[in-house]
């Protein structure tokens, strides 16, 4: 496992402060955040490339904060895999063993094993320049695992691959991790990678860790505006909680109101997050009346999508709504149509707006 406590670092324009988290042994953690959030710098600092300004890094129970990279038992792969271009695939994979002084014969066996494990035996004599993206990734993984690291750090390993290669590489890494029980910390900017791979997601921005948890938790219940944006909520509105008269509170958004399942505090301001696919559209109120939020509006734009259409509805407040052809087999909505949107209170997610104007996650 790997644990980071109160880690800080200043480097050029970047500034990470008091980063604390742990990646349990055998688990997969994905680190997300907008570009410029400091994700790569955090990985590099954990690997020991830069001196931290404070805090500690523990790898496998050993405090390595002041150790040079070669003493940390960390495997590292950059986005472009950083294979050594002057060494063959075999030379790359055996590099770590050579540095560790493993005798030539023993090294040969281990390397053959690694090449076989990653199905790259036939590439042994090739140079990295002649490999495809997927092959490079396998070589990089074989090389990193050759030294039996305690933890593997991966910096956006799938970002540069075309979509077909990408899915198969993600699958390979997932299988590898499940079979070997590797501990992995990976940077990513794609939500699907987190859903596919991660036991834990960390979201950071501007050098600060904002939220962590299981992917489905973090993405369905973001605690910060930035996290909501990474979680892909199409509708993020701003509103204020007020007493509704029936003892509960509802939210005032522009001219309209909305009921949420969670209990907002009177007078507090909230970001109100609703997914476009969680809103149902009908021509008029149906029997469900009273069971949720009904919002009258007018369709102002309709755009086809793979499975239906995306509508922009203007009413008391604007809404983006995805209509699946499976959900709405009625004749399609058109520009100018009067519609009613229904929103389940359980699908209305609230994030308190930070008290200070211009606070760091607005």
């Amino acid at each position: 496992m790997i644990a980071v406590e109160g880690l800080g670092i200043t480097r050029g324009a970047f500034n990470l402060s008091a980063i604390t988290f742990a990646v349990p042994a055998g688990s997969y953690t994905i680190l997300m955040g907008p570009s410029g959030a400091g994700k790569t710098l955090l990985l590099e600092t954990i690997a020991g490339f830069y001196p931290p300004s404070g805090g500690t890094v523990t790898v496998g129970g050993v405090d390595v904060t002041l150790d040079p990279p070669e003493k940390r038992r960390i495997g590292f792969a950059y986005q472009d895999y950083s294979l050594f271009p002057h060494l063959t695939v075999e030379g790359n994979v055996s590099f770590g063993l050579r540095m560790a002084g493993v005798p030539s014969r023993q090294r040969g066996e281990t390397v053959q094993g690694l090449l076989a494990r990653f199905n790259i035996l036939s590439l042994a004599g090739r140079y990295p320049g002649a490999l495809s993206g997927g092959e490079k990734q396998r070589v990089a993984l074989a090389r990193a695992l050759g030294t039996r690291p305690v933890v593997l750090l991966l910096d956006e390993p799938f970002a540069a691959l075309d979509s077909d290669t990408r899915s198969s590489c993600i699958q390979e890494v997932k299988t590898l991790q499940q079979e070997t029980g590797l501990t992995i910390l990976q940077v990513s900017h794609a939500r699907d990678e987190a859903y596919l791979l991660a036991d834990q997601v960390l979201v950071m921005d501007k050098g600060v860790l904002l939220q962590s948890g299981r992917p489905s938790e973090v993405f369905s219940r973001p605690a910060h505006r930035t996290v909501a944006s990474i979680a892909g909520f199409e509708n993020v509105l701003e509103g204020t909680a007020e007493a509704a008269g029936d003892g509960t509170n509802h939210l005032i958004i522009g001219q309209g109101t909305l009921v949420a399942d969670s209990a907002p505090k009177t007078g507090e301001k909230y970001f109100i997050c609703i997914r476009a696919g969680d809103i149902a559209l009908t021509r008029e109120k149906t029997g469900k009346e009273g069971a949720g939020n009904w919002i009258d509006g007018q369709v102002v734009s309709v755009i086809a999508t793979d499975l239906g259409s995306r509508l922009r509805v203007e009413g008391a407040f604007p809404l983006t709504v995805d209509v699946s052809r499976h959900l709405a087999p009625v004749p399609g909505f058109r520009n100018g149509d009067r519609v009613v949107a229904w929103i389940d209170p359980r699908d209305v997610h609230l994030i308190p707006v930070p008290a200070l104007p211009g606070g760091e996650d607005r």
Partner: protein
Amino acid sequence: MTPAAAPGRFKGRSLIAFWIPGMVLVGIIVLALLVIAIPVLQNLEILAATAADPVVLHAFLVTFVAGFTAVGILALTGTPLAYALSRTDAPWKSVVETLVDIPLVLPHTVAGLMVYLLFMSQGPLGGPLGELGLTFEDAFPGIVAAMVFVSIPYYVNAVREGFGRVPVQLENVARTLGASKGRTFISVTLPLATRHILYGALLAWGRAIGEFAAVIMIAYFPLVISSLIYYRFTTGGIAESQAIAFLLILLCMVLFFVFRVLTRRAGVYDDRG
């Protein structure tokens, strides 16, 4: 293909208006080569006599050996300097860079004066080194000293460029694979900069063997090729100095060609390796 699109008629990108004035300079250089080569090739006897002249042969030997010695000294001291410069990001780095560039911008006789003042028998370097038995004035070590001084920026800048192109990420990854700083430099950085190191050595060598002013000011003798050409030129032997110049250019071309063949595959990595 329709006739309308005959390539000859699409003139959107022609550069002829730029090539015409530009060819003045290229023409001067071509003429300069011809003006040496044609008279020599028209009078092969002088060429043969010059090639067999022991003074000429000795000058070639002195020049080339001094050049290689200078490059060796640069490799030992300039390579670490180039690496340190390529991996440093401190504000004082530009001061060091400016200092390294000074021999490049100095007038040749000023460089010669400096080398003389430094390495003459009472000089701050020539004095102590003289006590160790190294004499510079009118001696082989003086030629080497002059050559090293004027070639520093050629070597250091080329090699620094090479190190700069080795991604720090590769060094970082090598460290995580268990390589210490020193082993990373030897196993990763140095091999990847081979091409630039060889190129820097070639540039520095070319600059070194061509130096005239700095060499003659510390050590007119033993004669280097540059000095010999000048000496024959001023003593009325234009045809002879043409022949020496021709031989020098020829020899350098052969050496450069051999160098290119030998290093063609240096720093190139693909499946044919």
